[in-house]
Structures are given as C-alpha cells and as structure tokens.
C-alpha cells in the first residue's frame, strides 16, 4: 500500500483505465466466486434463468391440467392431485415467475440503462436472489413430495385455515409467499435508489427511458402492495395455523372477508406490477425498430403512473360476489373501467409511432405487435368484468380464466419474449436466431388463441374454474379438447424457444455493442458488458443519447472516477447533477448465509415453532458479519484489491469533482 497525493485522471488513455478497472472488478474464480458474487448482471442472469425454470415447471402443471380436462370425467388425475396442480401453477406463475422475472429484468437492465456500474446495494441484491431461490425450491420440492399447496393460489380462509386444511400444505404456500415478498421488496428498493440516485449525469427526469420509468413505477407499487400480503399470509394466516390465533375464524369473532380485502389489496396491483414493465419493454422495442422517438413521451410516462395509481383502487372487483355495499361496488366498477384509458392511450401512441416510423419487422418487433393484438382482447373483456352484474355471471368461470390469460400472456409474456429477443445479444453477446424466433412467435400466437379463446365460451356456458372434471351432459367436452390442443401448440413453441436459446448462446451471430441501432445507454457498452458496465460513465444530453451521439459522432463521458476502487457516481434525483462519489462493496458470502438463516427460520417454522428462535440467532450472526466495519481507506490511498501498486506520479491538483469530457471512441 502506497500513500500519495490523488492523481489527476483527466486525459488518461481509456485502455489504461480499462485494464485498471479489470483488475479492480475482476470476479473471483470458481464456485466460491459464484456464491459470493454481487455483480448485478450475474445475479440478474441467474434470477431470470431461475424464473424461467419455475415458468417451465408451472407450465408442465398447466399442460397436465389441460390433459385432465380434455374430456369429461377423465381420470388422469384425481381431485387431490388436480388441486395441487392448479394451486402450484397459479402460485408459481404469480409469485415465482411473472413478478420476479420482471424485477430480475429490471435488476439487469436498469443500471445499464441509467448508465452506472451496479445497483445501489449489490449485497442486498444478492440476498434477494438467494431468498427467492429458497422460496421457489421450497414450493416445488414440496409439490413433488406430494405436499404441494392445494387450496388455490389465493388461499381463501376458512378453506386454508387450520380446521379445513390440516397438514402443512398451506404452510408451504404461506412461507413461499414470505420468501418472494422479501425478494420483491429488496428488488424494489434497489430499483428506486438506482433510478433516483445513480443515473448518469444529464439524465434528468425527462430523459429517463420509458422502460426505466416502468421499473420505477412497479418498484413503488411493490412497496405499497406487498406488505399487505406479507401481513395477511406470513403473519395472520400462518399464525392462525401455527399458534391458533383466530384472525379469520368466524366462530371466534374473526372474519373471512378481511382476508380477501388484504389479499386482493396486494393481488390486484400485482397484476399491474407484472404488466407495467411489459409496457416499458414494448416502448423500447417500438422506439428502436421504428427508428424514431416514441410519440407522446410525457403522456406515456403519466399513463404508467396513472395505471400504477389506479391499480390500487380495483381490488374489490375480485369480491363482487361477497356482501359489499352497492355504493362501494360502484366506485370499484368506475375505477376498473377507467384504468382502460391509460392503457388505451399508450396503444394509440405506439400505433402513431409505428405510423410515423420505419418499422423493421424483427422477431422482437413482432412480439410487440402481437402484444397489442392479444392484450387488447384481455383489456376489452377486462372492461366487461368490471361491470358488477356481468361479473356476477362470469366471476370464477372460464370466462375469467380466458380474460386474465389474455391479459397476462398478452401483457407479460409477449413483451417479455420480445425483450428476450431484444436484449439477449446484450446479455450473452450473441443474437438469437431470427428464423426460429419467428416460428416461436407464430406457434405461440396461434397456440394462445386456440387455448384461451374457447374458454370465453366455456365460461358463458357455465363452466366454473378450478374443477378437476365435469360431466358429459354439460357439453363442455369439445371446446375443452380444442383448448387442450392449443396447449400442445404453446408447448411446441416454448420448445422452439429453448432450442433457439441453447443454439444461440454458443453459436449465434456475434452481436457487437449495438446490433439494433438502439438509442439507450445499455447499448453504449460491450455485449456482454464488462463487470464494471462502463469504462467511462456516459453523460446524457438527450432522451435518445446514442442517436444524438451518432449525429454528433461522439458520446460525452465522465472522467475522473477512480479505477483502483469500485467507485460510482451519485447524482441528484431530479436533474442528475453529479453530487458525490461512492464506493461499491466487494464480493461477500454474507448475503448467502443470511438467506440460509431466513430459510431456516421460515421453513423450520412450518414444523417447529422454535425454528423462529434458531433462525433469529443465525440471522443475527449473519447480520453481524455483513455489517462488520470495513477498513476505511483514506481518499489519498491508492489501493487495489489484488495488488498494491505504486501510485502514478502526481499530476497537479486533484479534481474537485468528476468532469465531463468528450471521448470519440465511446460513440457507437
């Protein structure tokens, strides 16, 4: 370790800086490196892959359900197995796929899109992933051990209460929710702080990419919505079951409706938590492939916020069949109807953008178009079910199953697959195959419609949800068979996608930094990005920085950040004016150990109440290790983790703050 005056770093060679950054940010090798990694890209990648694994497993459940329902009085699975199948399908898709895959995408993309080196709290981020992994494993291992929850993904009491569901199936569900809530809240905190304080200089609020706005909106929604379900499942339901509190037992003055209010206060916004990032994906894809700025940017941003806000005023429309006063119902009907407006506005803006642009019909763009075509059907049936009298006819029938699969597949999966085709080259450095991609798209598009459109008719014909079989006299057999055939088409398309990924990740065309000619900052760095994301932090002068840079033939950058420490720039929340430099923490095992402690606590508590005590003790130790004071290094100490090296000779006075300079080599 050498002490020297802080050198001036202006005007240094970028290759020298890159080499120094590589030494400072070099990931640790081997399994230990994998377990201790805090790099947001590494963590988000495994987050996404884990989510896709749960998606495939939950999809297998769906395929089995479709097989069982393909003809009346089928005996492939009995009621016990079937109830587990649909509960695990719903729970996994909601808690382990749709929401976490969206936060995982945000954890990968947001730091790159706002132009910084990592998320705000990298170790916390790692903890979020490990906790999420624990929750997912707990649910699926329990399911394969025939201990999967069987009371529905909503776990209504009294059916989920201690009298009606003895055994541990419901506990598995309640604790799985706990894990995903912890992970979700962590991701939300990461996203909010990263967007507010880590943006590249010059990226004022009116220059934030629409996808980053959507991530910010859902982060706030998670913070407001998730505590509600955490309290109702982790605390009240679990305590009713484990220590005989009587929150929901009517015989002891408890109330079954209270549960529904608290559950849906979370679960309705949750639908928008998974859907709003989809809107962000579509905006980015449309902007890139039409080659022009999104029409109506301020309106798009306001629509995202309006959707996020009104989403909290809709939950009672899941409860229209319970005794709710008519005036209250009217309020929720009006909110449910009017939430269609911001979505409609965004669709109109995209159409206007496409009209005025020069569309390139790549696979990613097809997914964006498919999103509008499929999602709009779900949106329109959504307006219908906002009506109390109509909802009372179709509530809890296959009409609603059709409705929300159109909304979620249209609003979440179509944009997500589009996003995969769009950002895969950034994440893996290679392009996905376009021809297989188009097969994937068209098979999926046909499969979804063949599967779910007939369900509208089944619902109107009186077929309720969550039935493991039906009698032939109902006449539901043919449409069910049609839907089952559709599910095979969906399965085929997913297989095509997997083949495409496995083929392209090694053998796809090399992408280069910006294969699509996109305007946002994540394309200003190499594909895949280096662990430090940007050798020099970009400075932003417009809403589409790379397009501006290609006109000006250079991308302005920030110089002066230290390369011998993991330093990043903190900027002001509104105008992204540089405020200070901070240092990111290095690799750490404590997030994993903390996740183990949390896992012991909540999984152990399913069987033994004292597990709370053991887990608490373990968590205390993990927390102590985590928060153990790090050596503070004075500002003038030049130090590298791997080699103490002599500081360069001082070159005049140290810079007071990082300064902006123009470096032509960083321009695309």
């Amino acid at each position, binding site marked *: 370790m050498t002490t020297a005056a802080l050198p001036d770093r202006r005007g240094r060679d970028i290759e020298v800086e890159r080499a120094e950054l590589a030494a400072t940010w070099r990931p640790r090798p081997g399994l230990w490196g994998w377990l201790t990694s805090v790099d947001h890209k590494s963590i988000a990648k495994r987050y996404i892959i884990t989510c896709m694994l749960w998606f495939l497993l939950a999809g297998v459940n769906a395929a089995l359900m479709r097989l069982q329902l393909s003809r009346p009085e089928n005996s492939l699975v009995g009621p016990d197995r079937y109830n587990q199948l649909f509960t695990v399908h719903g729970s996994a898709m909601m808690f382990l796929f749709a929401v976490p895959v969206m936060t995982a995408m945000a954890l990968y993309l947001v730091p790159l899109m706002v132009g910084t080196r990592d998320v705000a709290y990298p170790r916390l981020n790692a903890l979020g992933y490990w906790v999420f992994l624990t929750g997912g494993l707990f649910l699926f291992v329990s399911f394969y051990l025939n201990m999967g929850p069987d009371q529905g993904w909503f776990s209504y009491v009294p059916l989920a209460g201690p009298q009606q569901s003895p055994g541990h199936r419901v506990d598995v569900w309640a604790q799985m929710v706990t894990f995903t809530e912890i992970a979700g809240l962590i991701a939300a905190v990461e996203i909010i702080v990263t967007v507010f304080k880590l943006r590249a200089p010059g990226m004022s609020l009116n220059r934030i990419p629409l996808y980053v706005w959507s991530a910010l909106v859902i982060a706030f929604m998670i913070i407001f919505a998730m505590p509600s379900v955490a309290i109702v499942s982790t605390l009240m339901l679990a305590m009713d079951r484990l220590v005989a509190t009587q929150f929901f037992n009517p015989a002891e003055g408890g109330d079954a409706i209270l549960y529904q209010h608290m559950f849906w206060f979370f679960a309705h916004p949750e639908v928008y938590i998974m859907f709003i990032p989809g809107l962000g994906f579509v905006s980015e894809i449309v902007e890139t492939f039409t080659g022009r700025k999104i029409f109506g940017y301020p309106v798009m941003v306001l629509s995202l916020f309006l959707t996020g806000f009104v989403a909290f005023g809709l939950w009672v429309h899941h409860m229209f069949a319970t005794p709710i006063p008519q005036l209250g119902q009217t309020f929720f009907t009006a909110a449910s109807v009017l939430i269609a407006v911001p979505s*409609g506005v965004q669709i109109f803006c995209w159409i206007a953008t496409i009209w005025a642009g020069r569309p390139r019909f790549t696979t990613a763009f097809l997914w964006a178009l498919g999103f509008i075509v499929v999602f709009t059907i779900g949106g329109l049936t959504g307006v219908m079910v906002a009506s109390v009298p109509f909802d009372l006819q179709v509530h809890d029938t296959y009409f609603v199953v059709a409705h929300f699969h159109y909304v979620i597949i249209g609003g979440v999966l179509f944009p997500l697959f589009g996003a995969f085709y769009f950002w895969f080259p950034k994440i893996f450095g290679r392009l996905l195959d376009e021809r297989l991609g188009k097969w994937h798209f068209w098979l999926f598009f046909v499969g979804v419609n063949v599967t779910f459109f007939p369900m509208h*008719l089944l619902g109107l014909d009186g077929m309720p949800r969550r039935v493991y079989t039906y009698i032939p006299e109902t006449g539901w057999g043919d449409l069910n068979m049609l839907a089952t055939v559709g599910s095979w088409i969906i399965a085929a398309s997913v297989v095509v996608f997997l083949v495409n990924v496995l083929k392209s990740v090694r053998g796809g065309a090399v992408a280069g930094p910006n294969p699509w000619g996109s305007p946002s900052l994540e394309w200003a760095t190499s594909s895949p990005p280096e662990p430090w994301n940007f050798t020099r932090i970009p400075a932003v002068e417009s809403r589409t920085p790379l397009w501006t840079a290609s006109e000006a033939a250079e991308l302005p950058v920030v110089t002066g950040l230290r390369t011998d420490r993991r330093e990043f720039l903190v900027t002001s929340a509104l105008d992204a004016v540089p405020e200070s430099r901070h240092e990111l923490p290095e690799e750490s095992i404590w997030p994993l150990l903390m996740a183990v402690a949390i896992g012991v606590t909540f999984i152990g508590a399913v069987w033994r109440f004292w597990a709370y005590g053991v887990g608490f003790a373990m968590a205390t130790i993990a927390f102590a290790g985590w928060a153990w004071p790090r050596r503070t290094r004075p500002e003038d100490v030049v130090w590298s983790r791997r080699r103490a090296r002599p500081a360069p000779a001082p070159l005049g006075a140290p810079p007071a703050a990082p300064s902006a300079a123009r470096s032509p080599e960083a321009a695309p």
Partner: protein
Amino acid sequence: MKRAAVCAALLLGACRGATYQSVLEPKGPQAAHVHQLWRFALVVAAVVYALTVLALLWAAWRGSRRARDGMPPVEGDRPGMTRAVSLGTGVTVAILLVFLVYDLSVGRTTTGVPIRDPLTIELTGHQWWWEVTYSGPSPRDRFTTANEIHIPVGRPVLFVLNADDVIHSFWVPNLAGKKDLIPGRTTSVWFQADTPGVYRGQCAEFCGYQHAKMALFVVAEPTSQYRQWAEASLAQAAPPSDPAAVRGQQVFMKSSCALCHNIEGTLAGSHAGPDLTHLASRRTLAAGTIRNTRGNLAGWIVDPQRIKPGAHMPPNQLAPDDLEALLTYLQSLR
C-alpha cells in the same frame, strides 16, 4: 368475434348443450338484463377491437412502405398525430362512460330486493352439497331438502345464504349471477324464473376436493305444480308397507345411515348429511353428480369415495340382501 368462434367450434364438431347451464340462454328477468348488457358490450368491444387492429396494421403498412421507399422516419410529433391520439382517447373515454352508466342501471335493476311477496328459501352450503330449507309464515311450513330447488314460475325467490364450513358460491347461470355463501355471514340473493324448466347450477367458489361435484338443480314449474310439490315435501315420510321396505328401514336405523341423515317421521334426525325424507323424488344423487337410479344409489351407498373422492360419506359394508332392502326402502321415499 363470438359468432366466428361459434362457427369455428361448430366446424370442429362442437355440439354444446345450449340450455343446460348457460349465461347465453336467460330464463329470468335478471339473466335477461345481463344478457342484453353482454350483447351490447360484445358488439362495442368487437368494433373497438377491429378498429384497433386495423389501425395497427395500417400503421405498420404505412411505415413499411416508407422503409421500402427509403424514406426516413417522420421526426417530431406532427399535429395530425396528436389529434388522432386525442380523438382515440376521447372516444375511448366516451364509450367507457356510456358503458359505465348502462352497467350501473342494469346493476340497480338486478340487485334491488323484490317488493312483491317473495318465496324465501334458506340455502346452506356444505362440503359438497346444498341444504335447502323452505320457510313460510308459520314454523309448520318449514321443510328441508337438498340439491334440488323447486320454485314457482313468475314469482321472485329470495335466497338467504349461509355456509357451514368454507366459502361456497351459489350460481344458476340461466337465472341470475352468483352470490357467495360465507361462514359467519348471512348474505342474500334473489331471482325469478319466467319459463318452466330445469336449470343446473354449480358451486362457483373453490371449496376443496369436490368443488367440481357440487351442483344443484332449480326446477321452475307453474304455481299449481309447485304447490303440489311443496305440500308433498312438507309431509312426513310415509311408513313403509312393503315388507322389503320395512326391513330396509330397519337396516337404515341400525347402520351408520341414521347417524348423519334425517328422515321426517322416523327416529333418524341428524342433519349432518342431506335430508332423505323425499329422496326418491329427486333427480340426482351426490349433489348433481349421478342420476338417481337404483343401481347408482347402490353404488353410492357402498362406495361413495369411488364416485366422489373426498366426500364426507363413509363407505358402507352391507350384506347383499340388506342392501337390496335398503334400496327398496329409500326408493319408496317419494
């Protein structure tokens, strides 16, 4: 959209039991109002959808023509685009407001409690069957049955809903929308049948293992016929005369049957399971699961778990002639 789908379904050989349990075949004023609302919403939605998709395709075609001609994208936001998007938004809001007003007016007509003297029926949900109690002005008019509700045509029927164990939901799509039966709360719903017929309903809120096999029938009949049925139902079970039936009654009383079931006019008085006083007059067994035939009844008594796994009725090991006698007795309970 819907018609196209129906055509497609017909082409694929679909044959749907139209009036069996359908929202699209309204047989009462409330279901009819909702059906009108549905048709209105369907037409509007189909038009809106077609326009949206056409606009999207047109925009894509316009844009790709520009790409073919090698023209650059239109930079900036043209006033025409702003006007088009504003117009689209304005029309959307207008349509939604019209829908909202229409919807609220339908809501008022369908949920208001009827003033004309309604027939009151208490309906209690059990895992997985329906207990139906008719109440009248005097306690002597009360009688209980299960899974089959007879109502007079043209008279509003008020249902008072309770649940015994978990939440269930009462729904007869041809007549009206659903209402939840919630333990610890009493709810109510009413409807009226305008056409005689047999309408099937099914529990609509997931309630455990046999949620799928928790159906009921509403039999709407002319008032005179209904009166006859009600009078017959009010009567106690006639003492058996046939020697086989007499023996069957003894089997019933000595086996576990009497522990759960009630037969008015006998010593069997438990209400844990469905009331069997007039079992033979009902159309189905096990809450709409199987037809009420002698063979099905025998199968149900001997091994209910095979027909309805998880049902609360235990299997019954009976000697063959005991079973025959029991069947004869139960079939005499008209």
